[in-house]
């Protein structure tokens, strides 16, 4: 008997701007004691389906058009609010993506933990506290009794997620719905949390519905995988069936988009374009006594024509290092020599001349374009500033750029908010290329994009790099992406350079312990088999 049987579920949204069918006739089952994963990109309707079942979709804009969701014999969609509430938090529990915003910052975590217990099981405060501390221990929180009265902001991201998991499991639910629970976490923490969820599921014999955009993440733990696209379920099956015998073109596209393989290692001639010596970028925030050592004594060389991958988790300093090379972050000490000139000594017009030769592509395609400038203006700005062309040839130059990055010329007068994330990133790449730079720092350029778009943009970057003979510093936290496009790799941890070497050397024979743990955390072991 299935734990959850969803049949022909349809959900739509109706706003002033129009109606939108978010979920169309979706049917699936979740078996007890199994992990079922729902995979989809943004707009696939994967989250909406689950929220709708629990009545968590606000029904003025949303509307359940039809279908049923049988849980233990009762149709969740037909239940009244009171009955649904009894099930929520007791028989079906949810954990969400961002534990920082999902926990009440004004309440101690202990209070939040015991809430479902007291609400559904009527325990006294004392008994509930004992139970809560047991659970905190089970999810791996150290000294749980002491942390009972702490506030969410006192925990790290991974710890907070553990608290959320404890809170969800405290009433021993039969079904746990996890909505992208590891997306906001560092890769090593992600591995730990995945492990935790898998272990808890086994020990407690519950069913898990795991929502994600990342096939690699669920490859290791799912028993069944469901693929959704634009509100429709396109395929489902066991991991083996999906990964090795995918039927639907969309599934195949998703699989193809997973970064794999590696750059054909052309031997790069050691010809340093950039030489960094003992670089320190320290920040001195006003309310802290200790400076934040974002980049702490880093020395490296980047050779002409190579793609250097810079990998690390949050707080490693990789973004700050990239920005420091471009003089976008205040360098405290050390030197950055670009083609023979020390950039740290330059100001004003000499610096401006060098800026033309080095550009940056930023992570967030929504924030890196001025929302009040059209594409034309955004591309014209660097062209005119550095006199790459004069006003007569401006149109032609912009047209060429648009073609290079694969954007239709007809879009030239549109504003950033009228484009998708992938298109905006293309505009940003176009802007970076406008000054015909020799060196580009790409700071997590694809991390904010859907996986299929990610693949396209990576392809574009590689092609453009080859075509224009660019030297690139590619910063990312995603090891798989780095492996695909970098010639050499550097690993950073807490401001320091931990290891560097050729890509295959690092991936095949990592020397440092941290590098090894990073590599071990890459999800999708099942895929590369």
């Amino acid at each position: 008997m299935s734990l959850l049987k969803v049949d022909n579920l349809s959900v739509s949204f109706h706003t002033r701007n129009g109606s939108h069918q978010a979920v169309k006739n979706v049917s699936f089952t979740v078996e007890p004691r199994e992990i079922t994963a729902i995979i989809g990109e943004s707009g696939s309707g994967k989250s909406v389906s689950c929220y709708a079942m629990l009545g968590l979709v606000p029904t003025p804009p949303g509307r359940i058009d039809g279908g049923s969701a049988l849980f233990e014999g009762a149709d969740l969609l037909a239940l009244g609010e009171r009955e649904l509430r009894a099930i929520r938090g007791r028989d079906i529990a949810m954990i969400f993506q961002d534990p920082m915003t999902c926990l009440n910052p004004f309440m101690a975590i202990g209070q939040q933990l015991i809430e479902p217990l007291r609400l559904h099981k009527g325990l006294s405060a004392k008994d509930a506290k004992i139970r809560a501390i047991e659970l905190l221990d089970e999810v791996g929180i150290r000294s749980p009794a002491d942390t009972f009265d702490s506030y969410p902001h006192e925990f790290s991201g991974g710890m907070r997620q553990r608290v959320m998991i404890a809170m969800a499991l405290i009433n021993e639910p039969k079904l746990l719905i996890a909505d992208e629970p590891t997306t906001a976490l560092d890769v090593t923490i992600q591995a730990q949390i995945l492990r935790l969820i898998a272990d808890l599921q086994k020990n407690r014999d519950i069913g898990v519905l795991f929502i994600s955009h990342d096939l690699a993440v669920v490859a290791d733990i799912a028993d069944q995988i469901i693929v959704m696209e634009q509100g429709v379920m396109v395929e489902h099956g066991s991991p083996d069936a999906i990964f090795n015998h995918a039927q639907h073109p969309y599934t195949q596209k998703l699989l193809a988009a997973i970064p794999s393989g590696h750059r054909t290692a052309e031997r790069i001639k050691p010809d340093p374009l950039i030489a960094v010596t003992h670089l320190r970028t320290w920040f001195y925030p006003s309310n802290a006594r200790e400076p934040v050592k974002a980049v702490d004594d880093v020395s490296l060389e980047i050779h002409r024509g190579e793609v250097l991958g810079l990998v690390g988790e949050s707080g490693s300093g990789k973004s700050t290092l990239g920005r420091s090379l471009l003089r976008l972050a205040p360098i405290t000490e050390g030197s950055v020599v670009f083609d023979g000139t020390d950039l740290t000594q330059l100001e004003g017009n000499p610096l401006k001349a060098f800026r033309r030769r080095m550009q940056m592509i930023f992570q967030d395609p929504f924030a890196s374009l001025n929302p009040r400038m059209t594409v034309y203006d955004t591309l014209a700005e660097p062209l005119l500033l550095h006199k790459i062309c004069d006003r007569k040839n401006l149109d032609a130059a912009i047209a060429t750029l648009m073609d290079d990055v694969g954007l239709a010329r007809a879009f030239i007068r549109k504003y950033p908010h009228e484009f998708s994330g992938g298109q905006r990133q293309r505009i940003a790449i176009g802007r970076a290329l406008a000054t015909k730079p020799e060196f580009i720092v790409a700071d997590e350029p694809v991390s904010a994009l859907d996986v299929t778009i990610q693949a396209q943009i990576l392809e574009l970057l590689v092609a453009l790099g080859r075509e224009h003979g660019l030297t690139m510093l590619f910063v990312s936290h995603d090891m798989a992406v780095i492996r695909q496009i970098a010639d050499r790799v550097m690993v950073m941890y807490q401001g320091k350079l931990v290891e560097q070497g050729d890509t295959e050397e690092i991936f095949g024979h990592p020397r440092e312990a941290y590098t090894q743990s990073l590599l071990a955390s890459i999800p999708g072991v099942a895929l590369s088999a």
Partner: protein
Amino acid sequence: MLRFMLIRILQALPVIFVVITATFFLVRSAPGGPFDQEKVVIPEVKKALEAQYKLDLPLHEQYFAYLGDLAQGDLGPSFKYPGRSVNEILFSGLPVTAELGFYALLIALCIGVTAGVFASLRPNTAQDYIPMSLAMIGICMPSFLLGPLLVLVFGIWLDWLPITGWGDIPGDKILPSITLGSAYAAYIARLSRAGMLEILSQDYIRTARAKGLPEWLVVTRHALRGGLIPVIAFLGPAFAGLLAGSFVVETIFQIPGLGRFYVQAAFNRDYTMILGTTVFLSTLIVFFNLVSDITAAWLNPRLRAQFKGGSR
């Protein structure tokens, strides 16, 4: 937390000092002395009076003498009412104004918070539009318009409530309190609505619902804590505004409070009275701002921890 409080208190002291100094020199630099407007005074008598009030000393000496008196809590004698000191007059009016302010604030908080929270629960529906329209009226109708209107309707036409005095006739505290409090009820209603809307759209409210909590618990236990912080922070400026508003309300309803004395002193150029009242009121305002700032900060656990030092 203690360190934060200390810093804030130390920041407030120069402000008070600036107030005292600026007021002193401003008042003294105005043309004309306190006795110039009176009936003609014989020069010798005028000189004697000036000596008595230390007006014949050089300005900076008067300043330091004043500071010295202040340190002892002595705000000096009144020019207008010889024989009475500023302290005396101030403290006769203070309880009245304090009571008026208290009732007004009570009305403002009770009505404002209830209306604002209520409206935030169903935005863009009648439950929202009606209280917020009333709030808009409260903001757009100043106390000096509302007061006379209320007097006209309830005092004169309907003759339900008394329209002057404070504490003389039962019910004479109602109209002034409503007049003074209504604008603040309106501001507080808007603030609490905005604060609640912001909090209700947060992810952790969804988590609370996912735990199966009934909506009223979600609102009271989870949403209110964060949603009302803007209201707490507003209390400091509200206090200053209430004080200023009391000038008008006390004038309209002829209430013998601080506000009315202040306005009269301003007209009469009663130096010590102006000085004393300004210093006193300003210190009160600074103090209240301090309390409201510290409370609002204390209510946010993240800020609280920042000043205790260190996180896990």
